[in-house]
């Protein structure tokens, strides 16, 4: 998926840039136009799935997401409906049963300073997040995570992700990237850290 005019990169293209982060990515298939609908649906490996409209802000509030799709017929109907209503691109993704949602973000400020954000995520992100100045030590990361997550294994996965994200942003290939949002991220029923949605903003 190409970089949009507003500098936002989502879906598989953004995931490709973030693939080295220690987090699981759900199965994802992008649908660029109507001609790809049937092929996309037939590629679904398992149900339920989620259909999402790509490239809109506040997708939840805009009713641009449809969950709990349990079969191919429903998936096709929802894709056609969203295509008519919002246009393309759309995406099909594996639906992960999960617990609380968190948000992790990285931002390069105009002053040239990098900050990380972490807190409760999902649709009400912004109300319960904390910011820290990069670089964070492991103890900084631990204290930040500790405010929301008490379970040790979950803490360790999140700490590794925070440290990897700030490390990743120091790589030369990150040039031009000014913001990364992993929101929401969550833990699957098996306890694995999973990204449910993500965006990259580039200058």
């Amino acid at each position: 998926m190409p970089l949009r005019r507003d500098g936002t990169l989502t879906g598989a293209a953004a995931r490709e840039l973030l693939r080295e982060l220690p987090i699981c990515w759900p199965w994802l298939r992008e649908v660029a136009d109507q001609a790809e609908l049937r092929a996309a649906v037939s590629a679904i490996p398992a149900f339920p799935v989620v259909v999402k409209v790509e490239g809109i802000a506040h997708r939840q509030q805009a009713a641009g997401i449809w969950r709990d799709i349990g079969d191919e017929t429903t998936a096709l109907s929802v894709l056609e409906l969203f295509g008519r209503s919002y246009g393309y691109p759309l995406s099909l993704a594996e639906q992960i049963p999960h617990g609380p949602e968190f948000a992790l973000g990285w931002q390069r400020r105009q002053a040239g300073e990098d900050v990380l954000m972490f807190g409760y995520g999902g649709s009400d992100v912004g109300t319960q997040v904390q910011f820290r100045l990069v670089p964070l030590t492991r103890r900084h990361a631990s204290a930040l995570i500790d405010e929301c997550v008490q379970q040790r294994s979950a803490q360790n996965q999140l700490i590794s992700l925070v440290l990897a994200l700030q490390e990743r942003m120091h790589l030369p290939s990150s040039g031009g990237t000014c913001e990364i949002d992993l929101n929401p991220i969550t833990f699957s029923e098996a306890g694995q850290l999973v990204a449910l949605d993500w965006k990259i903003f580039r200058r």
Partner: protein
Amino acid sequence: MTAQASAAAAARARNGRAGFLSPPAETIIGFSEDSGPGASLLRNLTRDDCRFPGPVHLVNPRRAASGDTRFLRSAAEVAGPLGFVHVLLAGEAALQTVRQLTGDISAVAVYGGGFGDAGRDDLEQELANWSAHNATGRPVPVLGPQSMGVYRNTAGMQFCGITGPSPERAKPGPVAFISQSGALVGAFLRAAWSRGVGVGCAFSIGNARCFSFADAAAAALAEDDISVVCMYLEGVSRLADLATVGKVAARRGKVVLLAVGGESAGGRSLAQSHTGTLATESRLVSGVARQYGIIQVANVEELLWGAEGIGQAGQAILAGGKAFGVALIGLTGGGVILAADSLERNGVSLPQPTARGMRAISAVVGNRPVLNPVDGGALALGLADSHTALTRAYAEDPRYKIVACVAGMGLPPPTPNHVHLYDALADAIARTGKVGVLVSPLPDLTNGAWGMDGLVIARGLQEGAIKIRVLQDVARLGALAGRAAPRQSADAGRSVASPASEGH
């Protein structure tokens, strides 16, 4: 050379850039006997109880000698060092004057506005350029524009080089105050002195273009007698500066308290026009302050309460391992209810006692569903010994670092029974090495003059909540990082916590 001058010279040699806290002379440019700032500044510098030990030069090309006062036509006529130079001029006139300065200059404070605050960033930039490269051949700290000077009060150096407050009750001590607002420096000093809080140094940094809050904090933290640095800022443009201050404070085992103005839309707009400060979003500042162990409060009054509380807690805030819980005991039902509410509003939780503590407390008050907070008023009225046992049970519970007692029965003068109650708290604290806080529910109950050794005193519920929160933050930071050896404060004879951050 007098002993005091010798000490000042030694301090300059030791502190490098911070040597401007021990200048060999003071020079006031633009001085006028009948204008407010100059007259007030000279009065402060020459008062008997806080007299600057070196020469004070007055420069005004338009004034002749007046009585005993001798005016110089320019700074170039000063024989010997200019020392700390106060420029009581504004805008381009101030810049021209500064550009002509040369010789032995410890620092310059530009009092007038007309720089970034008036949209003249170019003038402010030129001032910054002069600070870095000038005829003296070395960088010179320039405070301001819109500075109101520097105050220093320690065994080796006293000078009240600021306009405004009368230093007649000046008291040296372990607290430093840094402010972008000059008037608040005077207000802070007056309030501190009236409460008996000693202030070792204060900086009015104004627009802070050439000499930032981080520079001022570095200077204050380098002073052996300073253990608590309070900062009032109208914005933080570089988060890294805040991180640096936190790191230096942690390394030196000192505490930094921060209040940032301009959180409201109106305040933010005014801050920008007041000192030209472009503020970073407040939640970023809060996050970085927390990351680096800087304790944030809401305003200057809370800075003073926090600094006073740390001083009153003294050594006890350091000792006692990893506990940082707060227990709240009331001698008045209404008072303890309101105190609990006030603590919660300020983010202080009241954890229940440990199982061992619960047994000890229940033995005194009987089985109750909630044992923190607890109203021990009825016990106190009839059974003083029971109250003593109750207080001791909380103090001995390893979950608690701070035991707060709401005393609502009128102080001073307390009745003999009440003296016994407060003695019980002081005794329990002394036995256990915990921090005891005596909170009056209303400020006027305290009548301003009472205090008890070893106890933190809070005049009112909000003051109590802030002191408890600050003390808990100090204890928590130390508990998280493992406490460094306490650092003794020369003036106060007390030590404060190493404000270890989330980790460096």
